[in-house]
């Protein structure tokens, strides 16, 4: 089984040469004349105001949260889908219960307005 992953490892090694080679070539070719004004953070032509840590919406977190729960659900779905043809209707019944329970979660999040981008 590990032999199958040799190709992946080699592809990883070769793929690494693209960004590293790019950095190297660019390092040799490009000019380098930095000064303080050039290195300022870009902000619509003005000097940057205040801290970078602005207060983010909690909504980003809520979506990530719902995503994590559904991501784990998909982890259970893969083995189920692959084994389905050998088990048959019982598997379908189980998955209907599984998805039904999670659907309640989605419906709850929907009703509570957790899926609204305010």
């Amino acid at each position: 089984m590990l032999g199958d992953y040799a190709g992946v490892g080699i592809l990883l090694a070769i793929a690494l040469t693209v960004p590293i080679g790019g950095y190297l070539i660019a390092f040799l070719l490009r000019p380098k004349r930095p000064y303080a004004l050039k290195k300022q953070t870009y902000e619509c032509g003005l000097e940057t105001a205040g801290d970078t840590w602005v207060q983010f919406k909690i909504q980003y977190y809520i979506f990530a949260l719902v995503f994590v729960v559904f991501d784990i659900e998909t982890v259970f779905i893969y083995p189920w889908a692959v084994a389905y043809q050998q088990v048959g209707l019982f598997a379908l019944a189980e998955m209907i219960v599984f998805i039904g329970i999670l659907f309640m979660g989605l419906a709850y999040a929907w009703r509570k307005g957790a899926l609204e981008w305010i």
Partner: protein
Amino acid sequence: MVPLAGYLFVSAALFCIGLYGALARRNAVAILMGIEMMLNAAVLNLIAFWRYINPDAALTGQAFAVFVITLAAAEVAVGLALIIAVYRNRDTVVVDDVNLMKG
């Protein structure tokens, strides 16, 4: 060939690093990260024992590991939500400052 003790060593080291992180950090998020590392050490143990002791078609260790990962992720989701709730009420994530229960 790698002996089973090698994996157990890595797992034990990982667990203890996580333990140190959970005990020493002040930030609640960092404590949760330490706990997460400890759970990962447990999963590594489960899989190592499955592979070396009982590599049968029943895949007991792997099935167990899948459930542990599920629980770990659920725990992170709720734990972080709790931290965010505390942060919104008390404006801090430092566990030493959250001492409302001390009275």
